[in-house]
Structures are given as structure tokens and as C-alpha cells.
């Protein structure tokens, strides 16, 4: 399955909906979107990965790159993910300690609201 990307803003948060496979072929598109959002002043990003079928280290690199970029603006990049096979790669690489990972968009929005 190819990669589908969409995004919208709610209050101070930009939600990026990702669907499909994030790998060495498709990850550059996600990378470009994250860079574009940051360049346009969106520094609080929530990447919804609930419809992601596959994620590899290239995709992780893109997310880490996005995190670095938003942090340079005192921003945040957090994730929504409950799929065990996707969470496993975050655990293997220790990135569960780097990203805020939430079970739903609502849960993440609530946490984001508390942190504001």
C-alpha cells in the first residue's frame, strides 16, 4: 500500500494523518510534509499513525528529524499509535523515551492542552 498524507489544524496543534507504509520509498514524502509544516510556522505536530501498516528505520529517522526541527522552535512532535507491530520498532530503538506516544488523538490533544 502506498502512503497517504493529510493534515489539519486544531487550535495550536497540527494533526498529520498518515496511512499506508512508511519505508525508504515513501518516507521522503512524509519528511517533505513535516519540513513544509515547520517552515510555515506549525511547531506543534501530532502524527496520527493509527492507519500505518508498516514503519521502518527510515520512517523513524524522518520522525526524529521532524522532532529536531520543531524542538528548535520550542515545539513538539508527538504520536498516536496503538498497533503493537509499530510500537515494537519504537521499543527496539529506545524511541519510546523520546516521543510522546498516545492511544488516541483526543488523549494527545488533552495532554497537549495541559502542557500549554
Amino acid at each position, binding site marked *: 500500500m502506498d502512503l497517504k498524507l493529510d493534515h489539519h489544524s486544531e487550535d495550536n496543534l497540527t494533526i498529520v494523518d498518515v496511512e499506508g*507504509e512508511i*519505508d*525508504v*520509498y515513501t518516507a521522503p514524502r512524509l519528511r517533505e510534509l513535516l519540513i513544509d509544516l515547520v517552515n510555515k510556522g506549525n511547531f506543534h505536530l501530532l502524527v496520527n499513525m493509527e492507519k500505518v501498516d508498516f514503519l*521502518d*528505520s527510515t520512517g523513524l529517522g524522518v520522525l*526524529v528529524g521532524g522532532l529536531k526541527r520543531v524542538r528548535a522552535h520550542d515545539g513538539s512532535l508527538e504520536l498516536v499509535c496503538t498497533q503493537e507491530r509499530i510500537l515494537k520498532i519504537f521499543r*527496539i*530503538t529506545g524511541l519510546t523515551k523520546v516521543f510522546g506516544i498516545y492511544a488516541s488523538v483526543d488523549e494527545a490533544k488533552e495532554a497537549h492542552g495541559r502542557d500549554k
Partner: protein
Amino acid sequence: MATVELTFSALPAHVRTARLVATAIARRTGVSEALLDEVRLAVGEACSRAVEAHRVHCPGEPIVIELRDDSGRFEVTVTDVAPSDDLQQPVVPTDGALLPEMPGLGIAVIAGLADDVEVSSGAKGMRIRMSWPASPNGVAAV
């Protein structure tokens, strides 16, 4: 003897094909359903690393993946011919498609996924061999 040998050009689009082929053969070989996601991810990581290395050093050379079902194990070997001294070095982006944020992460992921991994590298390329348990008679029990 290799059950299946796949040779592909160093293009990111082919990595998905390699993943699909490896997963299909793993299933037929008798790797349990619970391990198929690990096979898919580990093979994808090995092929992605090889593709990125070839695109930097030798874009015209193909990458070889061998899939075997010897002795109750499903074994995958991914071989490239790019000098592998850059394993931990950032890959230089050539067309915006390569991602330098976390070089070397792919090998770490493979090590975390396969219970048997052997990485050998040198001036003539890198060979990643990994294996998983499989049913001796093929076709995993459901």
C-alpha cells in the same frame, strides 16, 4: 542451496517487492504467523540499507537477496557490493530521497528482530544473514 534468489536494482521502490517476496516465502516455509512481521521488517531494513549504500557508491550494481529453507530454519541473506566503511556514517543525500537523520539504525533494528543475525562487511560490500525458526515440513500451523 537457495530456494529463491532475487536480484534487484538499487531503487527504493524495489524494497517493498523484496519484503513481499520474503514474507510470502517465509509463510510457505513454515515461519509462524507471529514472526512474519519481524521477517518483513528485518528484510526491509537490510534491503533499504543496501539500496542506500548502492545509490551512494555503485548505483548501477544490483542487490542480491537469497531465501533458503534449510534445516528447519528460514534463512535470508542480503548481499551488496558497496564499500561498507560508511556503516555508521551519515549517508550523503543525492536527490532528497536519502535520509541522513539516523544512520546505522537499520542494523540495530535487525539485531532486535531476528534471533540469529550475522553481519560481515568489508571493502567489497556487506552481507547480512538472518534466520528464523520454521516448520520442518513447511507451511506454518494455523
